[in-house]
């Protein structure tokens, strides 16, 4: 069988990555047959999570090295090998995957291996068949482009976080068929990976947050972050920051939102004292609702905000905290 959509998904410790599930929801929304492939080792939880979705087939595509070398860890060479094999064999019309940090490692190499072009970090598409154009941001989100792809072969496209909503992910009425394969890698691994580690006493996955309270240069001192933290705690929100704040060391870099940090799309993003440099906006502007509080009425953050408050955050935030406590 050829045609249809193949979605490459990535696993996380507790199952399938949120961005990968969004990519599946996106593919389901386009209509037509959807298969999903999980490269690397898959546990039963991950297999079951995928089989429960409204997809035509689940492929669990593991790989192994001679004498068990590199077992279990991430290996870009292994990913590229199993994915190239699957794309050749299945010949889908389109291949989607999340534009994750992992994808940035293996997806361009997959494209190179298959002599395809990769349209990355897309936010949607228009048209059908040969006329399809993929929408993507350029110049750190300051411009948008419609990109067409010429030539034969599947359209290989990576998708920005938030391209589809998890609520739209459809589950199947019966479990999807699951196939397990394991590809023998011919040589020893070229890259030795250690187990992933987290730094700091408490690490955060901003991409999973429903509400984010973010601070920028306007917070002025490290001590003032406690004010933002209080608001975040009241709302059950995660604390995030612009690059300026992380460069100062006031918050760890894992809380940085923007082009050199995380891309987030929470239900609510509250920007405190963030002017809205393009490098920051590109990481948060697809949030469902954006609130900006800034003393500079001309700050670019207001252009992407749903609600804007021109004012001193040191007056507005305490008032907001008081209003929440009273509500």
């Amino acid at each position, binding site marked *: 069988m050829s045609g249809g959509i193949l979605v490459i998904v990535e696993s996380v410790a507790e199952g399938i990555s949120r961005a990968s599930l969004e990519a599946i929801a996106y593919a389901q929304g386009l209509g037509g047959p959807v298969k999903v492939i999980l490269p690397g080792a898959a546990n039963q939880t991950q297999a079951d999570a995928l089989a429960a979705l409204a997809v035509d087939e689940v492929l669990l595509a593991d790989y192994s090295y001679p004498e068990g070398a590199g077992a279990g860890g991430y290996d870009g060479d292994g990913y*590229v090998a199993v994915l190239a094999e699957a794309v050749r064999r299945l010949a889908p019309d389109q291949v989607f995957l999340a534009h*994750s*940090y*992992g994808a*940035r*490692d293996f997806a*361009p*190499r997959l*494209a*190179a*291996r298959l002599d395809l*072009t*990769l*349209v*990355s*970090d897309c936010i949607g598409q228009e048209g059908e068949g040969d006329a399809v154009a993929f929408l993507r941001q*350029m*110049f750190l*989100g*300051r*411009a*948008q*482009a*419609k*990109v*067409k792809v*010429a030539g034969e072969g599947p359209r290989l496209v990576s998708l920005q976080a938030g391209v589809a909503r998890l609520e739209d992910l459809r589950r199947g009425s019966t479990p999807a068929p699951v196939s397990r394969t394991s590809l023998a890698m011919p040589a020893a691994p*070229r*890259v*030795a*990976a*250690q*187990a*992933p*580690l987290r730094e700091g006493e408490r690490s*955060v996955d901003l*991409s999973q947050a429903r509400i984010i309270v973010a601070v920028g240069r306007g917070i002025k001192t490290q001590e003032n972050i406690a004010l933002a933290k209080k608001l975040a705690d*009241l*709302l059950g929100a995660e604390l995030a920051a612009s*690059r300026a704040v992380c*460069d100062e060391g006031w918050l760890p*870099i*894992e809380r940085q939102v923007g*082009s*050199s940090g995380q891309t987030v799309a929470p239900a609510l993003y509250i920007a405190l004292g963030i002017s809205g440099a393009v490098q920051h906006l590109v990481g948060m502007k697809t949030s469902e*609702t954006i*609130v900006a509080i800034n003393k500079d009425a001309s700050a670019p953050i207001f*252009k*992407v*905000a749903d*609600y804007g*408050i021109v004012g001193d955050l040191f007056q*507005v935030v305490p*008032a*907001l905290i*008081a*209003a*929440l*406590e009273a*509500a």
Partner: protein
Amino acid sequence: MKIAVCIKQVPSTSAPLQLDAGTRWLKEGETTFETNAADNHALEAALAIRDQLGGEVVVLTLGPERATEALREALAKGADRAIHLVSDQAPGLDPATVASLLASALAGEPWDLILCGLQSDDLGHGQTGAFLAEKLSLPQASIAAALEVTAEGQARVKRELEGGWYQWLELATPCLVTIQSGINKPRYAGMKGMLAAKKKPIVKQPVTEYPAGLTRQSIDELYYPHKAKQTRMLEGSPEAVATQLVAALNLRARP
């Protein structure tokens, strides 16, 4: 240690963007350019390794004539020599084509290490480094938040994952590493460096042939993002705006 650093000149991120609907690119004459942010960090990483282990740092760019400026700046910071693949087509080429051209230019010399910035601030594909690794059949590590190279030729890379996770990778040189912004503090080009740069060679190689069938992506339309949302400005005293916001969003304190 023989190190190549691929850099790109991109429109300044602090100046307004002047799009040209006709060419589906920028109004080049009204645009100021600068070296891509992540590439500056890649260059600094290369210079630091060379300063520690010896060897040479060669900067390479694919771009129109104006991109020489980025190379000159890199030389002033301490790179030893530069290669400029001169192409007026460069801004419109897709990452596959760019990587193929870079691969051809690099193929003639025995590199120990090739560094690239994670992504460009113009096209923002984030592909060129990884594509290049595949073209050169090199092992690669991407999104490096730390990079150590020993005199014996072993590279240790702290790879950034999402959600605050990292992973240490070990790979032997020759290899390719893509560098995350913020990994180091790029040095400035001093007056002495700028003077020294004038004596350093920039080899210009005009690109006359493009790999057939590779530039498969074309920009059909380039435009400013439509503002989809109306911003509702809340006005009044801090207490008044706070109350309005809590009501408008139905905000509740977490129990």
